[in-house]
């Protein structure tokens, strides 16, 4: 059965795409999301994220690190929001640096929220409850 973009996965739980070049942070964010009963796919770059988004239609939210080599989280956000097929997917940016210009630029570009690292499970739970319900 074909699924509309953004629809729930076969198991019913929301599907979150986590993007981070740090294997430590990928493991942590994936665990946080899974503990909140979300299905998680974790990739290590914006490029891989776009490849996956081209193949899978059931991604309900993207959570991405800001500072990654080759393609930053901001650049990924822009590409998602410029795409007619992907622009409805909420994008959350994570960063270890509290840079007001960076935050406002991401929010202006259409980011749903901006989380400071280290990620707290409670922040992610609150965010996902708001974005994915």
């Amino acid at each position, binding site marked *: 059965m074909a699924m509309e973009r953004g629809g729930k996965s076969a198991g019913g739980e929301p599907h979150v795409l986590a993007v981070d*070049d*740090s*294997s*430590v*942070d990928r*493991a*942590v964010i994936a*665990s*946080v999301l899974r*503990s909140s009963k979300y299905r998680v796919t974790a990739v290590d770059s914006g490029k891989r994220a776009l490849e996956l988004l081209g193949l899978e239609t059931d991604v309900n939210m993207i959570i991405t690190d800001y*500072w990654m080599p080759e393609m930053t989280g901001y650049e990924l956000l822009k590409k998602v929001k410029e795409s007619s097929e992907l622009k409805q997917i909420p994008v959350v940016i994570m960063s*270890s640096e509290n840079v007001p210009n960076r935050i406002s630029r991401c929010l202006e570009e259409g980011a749903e929220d901006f989380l400071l*690292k*280290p*990620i*707290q*499970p409670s922040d992610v739970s609150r965010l996902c409850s708001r974005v994915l319900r």
Partner: protein
Amino acid sequence: MEYSSLQRQVAYMKKGLFDQGYLDEQFDELEELQDEASPNFVEEVVTLFFRDSSRLMANIEQALERCPQDFRRLDSYMHQLKGSTSSIGALRVKNECTKFREYCDQEHLDGCQRSFQKVKREHAVLKQKLESYFQLLRQIGPTERATRSGS
């Protein structure tokens, strides 16, 4: 009896790591994520950390020997290292990373070199202490490790 003694030892060791500033509350957050489905989560993440951080530190070591010095590259490597120290709650290592980045901002090569030696020392000490901690935890067994509890 022996089991309770082991649990006490683990708790005492962990308290020591926090009291001496090796770890901060982020480590507790990781332990909260451990459950029956992922009973070894913290050890797995810490293993990832030491694998990645060793690679980054080797890159920094090489970069410090280059001439002329590329402080932006050095800062970028250290930014990555600092990020993952923060994610596992490795407080002392994180603090030394911060100092290194300050020297990078000033383009102070000597400062960077001295600071990097401290990063390496704190990294090595933390690795040894966490290896001992996990070794002790393994003796307790997966069920108790998966228990969500404070220190």
